[in-house]
Each structure stands twice: as structure tokens, then as C-alpha cells.
């Protein structure tokens, strides 16, 4: 957010009003320019995938929640307090030892942002959008995901109507972990399907 006060155009009435209110609140000590800048910066760039990771972790530790999540993703996600206008019509697809799911939006960049935050730039790129469908195995290899030949890859095309989230397999070596510990190994890419959760030695225990 710019602090530039040299405007290229005459300020509109509402803009002047916003500035006057900010000045008044600053004078009363209710806001500061720095605090406002920090919030705007945070909100513009940092909507992380932590909500989705919590959903996955819950599904890993709670079989009944997992069943609800796969049956009615919107309802199960809302149970954890997440959701929102554009996040409606979510579908969660579960990986199994023989099925790996990955998500793309071939048309544009539809994305379940209330749970995953903002899409990474590669998700919006034409090569990913095309190749995820035409050669998913090669794309996964480039992301460092090597799957056996016996694993079927299912590619899901998100749209404004349906947005997909991948429920990855819980890795071995995570027995007895808390939900918070589990959520920490669920990256954004795991839920797009271009990565699988891994247990690092440093993360164990």
C-alpha cells in the first residue's frame, strides 16, 4: 500500500472522507498509519492454507468427520468455522494408496480460497492448466511427486460452481500426533495434489 500523497487524479469525495476519518482516528490515538499499513499488507498477501490444513488434520484423526467431509464438504468445513461466499460448493476428494487426486482449473484459476488462501502463481499459469490434464504424471514428477505405475491419477477441473480440495494420505510415522502437529505437515500443495505430506526427522515427535 502506498503512502504516496501525490495523487495522479483529483481525490474523490469518498477518498477525502476516508483520509479525514483516518486523520481524526490517528489524532485520537485509535489508529496509526503503520498499523494500518501492516494490516493491509497482511491481508493483501497472506491468506495461508492453514484453514485447509486444519480440515485435513481433523479428517485424519476423526473417522466420522472424514466421512462427513467426503459426503458434504461445505457442511464439514463450516463445522470448523471456515467457508464463505466463493468457497461454496466444495468437494473433497480423498487420496488412497491406489488413487492420487490433483486439482486444476483449466478455464481460469478457480480455487477454494477460504481454506487454501490465494492460489500460487503456477496454478494460474497456462502450462499448468494445460499439462495437468494432458500429462499429469509428468507434472507431478516436476513437483517431486513420484507415483508407482499402479497409482491412478485423477485430475479434477475446478470451476466457479465446484471447487476441489484433496485430502492427502496421512503419512506413516505420525501415529499419536496432535491435530496441530498434523496440520503443520499439510502444505498448500498437498491439498492441490501437487505434493504429498512428508515426515521429516526434525518434525517427528
Amino acid at each position, binding site marked *: *500500500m*502506498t503512502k504516496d500523497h501525490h495523487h495522479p487524479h483529483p481525490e474523490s469525495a*469518498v*477518498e477525502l*472522507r*476516508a*483520509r479525514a*476519518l*483516518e486523520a*481524526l*482516528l490517528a*489524532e*485520537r*490515538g*485509535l*489508529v*496509526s498509519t*503503520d*498499523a*494500518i*499499513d*501492516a*494490516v*493491509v*499488507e*497482511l*491481508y*493483501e498477501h*497472506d*491468506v495461508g492454507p*492453514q*484453514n485447509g490444513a486444519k480440515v485435513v488434520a481433523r479428517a485424519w484423526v476423526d473417522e466420522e468427520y472424514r466421512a462427513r467431509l467426503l459426503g458434504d464438504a461445505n457442511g464439514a468445513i463450516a463445522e470448523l*468455522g*471456515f467457508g*464463505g*461466499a*466463493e468457497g461454496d460448493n466444495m468437494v473433497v476428494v480423498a487420496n488412497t494408496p491406489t488413487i492420487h487426486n490433483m486439482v486444476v482449473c483449466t478455464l*481460469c*484459476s*478457480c*480455487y477454494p*480460497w*477460504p481454506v487454501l*488462501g*490465494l*492460489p500460487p502463481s503456477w496454478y494460474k499459469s497456462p502450462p499448468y492448466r494445460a499439462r495437468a490434464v494432458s500429462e499429469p504424471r509428468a507434472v507431478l514428477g516436476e513437483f517431486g511427486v513420484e507415483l508407482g505405475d499402479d497409482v491412478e491419477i485423477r485430475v479434477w477441473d475446478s470451476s466457479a460452481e465446484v471447487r476441489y480440495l484433496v485430502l492427502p494420505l496421512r503419512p506413516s510415522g505420525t501415529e499419536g500426533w496432535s491435530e496441530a502437529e498434523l496440520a503443520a505437515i499439510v502444505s498448500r500443495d498437498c491439498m492441490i495434489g501437487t505434493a504429498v505430506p512428508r515426515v521429516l526427522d526434525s518434525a517427528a515427535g
Partner: protein
Amino acid sequence: MSADAPGLASVDHELGDEAPLPRDNGELVFEEPWQGRALGMGVVALERTGASWSGFRRHLAAAIAAHKPDPDESEATAYYASWLDALEALLAECGLLGQPQ
């Protein structure tokens, strides 16, 4: 610093479906810098004053309902103009916008 500022997800949660922030595929829509500052101002002011989000949401929904439609005005402009109305109304209600002593 914004260490105390609520995350965007919690702001979304507080606003609910009643008055959701303008977005385009998840990204907040700020057509002009003042719109982002209006959002930041509201969040910081609520944080510092301890005023309730439910009170703010109520004022915001009322301001949006009362906002006169203007064909030249974008959705984001209308929303954040209402946001300013709501912030003023809430702070006035808390007695924080009176004459300075």
C-alpha cells in the same frame, strides 16, 4: 506492528455472509488505495478500542442497506463507503467521535 490484528480469515468469519468483503476469486478487491486503508483502519480501530465485531457488522449491514445506488459507482467503492459509514457510526455509539477535549 500488526501482531494483535486478527487474521483475514477471522475478519471474514466476523463479517459472515451478511457483509462479506468484496473479492475476485478470493483476492480482496481494492480498486483504489483508500479502500484498503478503510479496511485497515476499521480493523485497527476495532482492535484498539475493543469495540465488538458484531456491533460493527450490524452497522455495516445497515449502511449497505441504506447506501443509495449510484450507477457510476463500483461495488467495491459502494462497499467501502458503507464501511466508513459503519465505522463512524460504531465509534460514535462508543462515544469516541465526539468533540476533542
